[in-house]
């Protein structure tokens, strides 16, 4: 079977969803459910709430496949934006309810919390969407605590290249503070969900 490139996959998926193909909905879920659930969990820190957001996001996409505009980026980034929006909306509601009930907290604290949660979710998204070689280098250096020379050896690249990847990976990650979700990872490098 010919492998679909991401933009082609995105467009075909959109057409199939618009056509009302239940099989396409299943494939959409298989590709993006863990992204949606983990981003929602990062914002809300609660399994049941993340389940609910997952239900809402897929419900929305299934009912509104035409809301996706391929010119605005890839479908993965769109799904991430929808999730983020929905999860932050729910966080605000939950915090407002808690405030009404307990009187604890302030508008600034809420905004700070929302901002922290949004940055964390964007960071997760960036890590899962960054080119695989950069992610692999970060994985080794951070989670496996390898130094950059060991990282270079593990990856079979020069030490120069290992330093470059670690720096570039962190540079990408640091954009979580400033930029919204972007669907611009080079084709063929994105992680298969």
């Amino acid at each position, binding site marked *: 079977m010919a492998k679909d490139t991401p933009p082609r996959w995105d467009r075909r998926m959109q057409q199939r969803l618009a056509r009302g193909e239940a099989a396409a909905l299943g494939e959409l879920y298989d590709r993006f459910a863990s992204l949606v659930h983990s981003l929602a969990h990062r914002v809300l820190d609660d399994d049941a709430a993340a389940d609910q957001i997952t239900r809402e996001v897929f*419900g929305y996409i299934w009912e509104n496949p035409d809301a996706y505009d391929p010119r605005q980026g890839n479908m993965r980034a769109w799904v991430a934006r929808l999730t983020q929006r929905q999860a932050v909306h729910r966080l605000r509601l939950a915090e407002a309810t808690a405030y009404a009930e307990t009187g604890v907290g302030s508008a600034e604290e809420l905004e700070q919390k929302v901002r922290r949660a949004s940055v964390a979710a964007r960071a997760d998204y960036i890590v*899962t969407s960054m080119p695989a070689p950069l992610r692999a280098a970060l994985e080794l250096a951070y989670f496996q605590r390898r130094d950059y020379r060991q990282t270079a050896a593990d990856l079979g690249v020069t030490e120069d290249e290992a330093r470059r990847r670690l720096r570039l990976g962190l540079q990408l990650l640091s954009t979580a503070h400033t930029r919204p979700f972007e669907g611009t990872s080079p084709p063929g490098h994105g992680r298969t969900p």
Partner: protein
Amino acid sequence: MTPADDGADGVARVPRIPGPRRSADDHADLTGRTPEEREPEEPVEEPDVPVLSHGVLKSLLGAWALSACSAGETAAVEAHLTECGPCADEALRLRDAVALLHRDRDLDLDPLLRSRVLENCLGRRPARIPIPGWVTPYDAETARLDALLRDIGESEWHAPVRLKWYEEDRPVRRKATVAGVIGHLFAVDGLVAGALGLDDPLGAGTPELSPSERTEAFWSGLERPPGRALREPWRDQSHALIRTVSFAGRGVADLTVTYKDFALPLRDSLLERAFECWLHADDIAHAVAYPYDPPCGAHLHEMIDLATRLLPAALAGRRRSGLAAPARQLVAAGAPGRSLHLEVEGAGGGHWYIALDSPAAVGDPDQAVAQVAMEGVEFCQLVAGRVSPEEAAAGQDGDREAIRDVLAAAASLSRL
């Protein structure tokens, strides 16, 4: 890069920026101390600080932020940060970015969430091209296996898996790997794909082969040991099967799928593939020490039902080769005959009456000569050759010969 070590003085300067984080935040600190306590207590030998060019220092910023350079390089970078504004800004940014790294927590995605989410969607907007109900066990099981595969590491694809089944009433074992098992599922699902006119993973013009022969052909055609790369073609094929069947219309359920030595209508064939998918997923989960649940009750019930429908013909085949006792009664086709009452307990359970003397006879509660009680999962493991007929029988009552023949016939349904 070998840092030049020309004995630079290494005067300790106070860095403008606090040092980088030491470790991954979600690793347990076995010393029970907080990192703040640990840091200053470590007796640090004064490192030799290499003299490095600006370009090299800049290239080290990522490794520095991750605490992934040598002590000398760390000191050199930190000295540099006190005198270079742009590098200091970037160092600060990268160090903050490290704080955003976070372990994936995808393992927890509840496999039952999928059907709940999809149901909710279809309640909001009914599908114009639905997935036929008889395909849902295959859809659910392939999705569950795919979620498991997504969570396992590259090296786990090569973990050994011991495949088990029965041949001529004797247990057979064969060594494979996780990836090899996926190759097996891919090759045998390909038989169904072929029946639907989709591409055959063994290539166009492959002669009619049994599932085992297809698997051997696929394995021997691989140039090197299979790995993670098999996940995508296997998954693409299962998606293509589901999609094709959804579009094909009602009559396709009765399409004949030939397995060389036997044939099944497509609806049973995909149920059989769902069954195989679950049991091999269970083999894989076992090999990589992951938990794996049985299918939902409704799907398990369908799988048990299929096995009980296959049993009378299996019994007849064994009788012809002298492996089962001769028929006691002559039964007219379609008439009720001597039966074994199979009572399956637990999720997916129920009561089945298996005709003993002829595949053409109808199972009949009034002519039950024996009863066997078992858990649903255990019965499936028997049919899949994972447990022996001797191990499987829990509660038995009545004609011992009938019980022995039926349990042995159930095990004989297993294959590679």
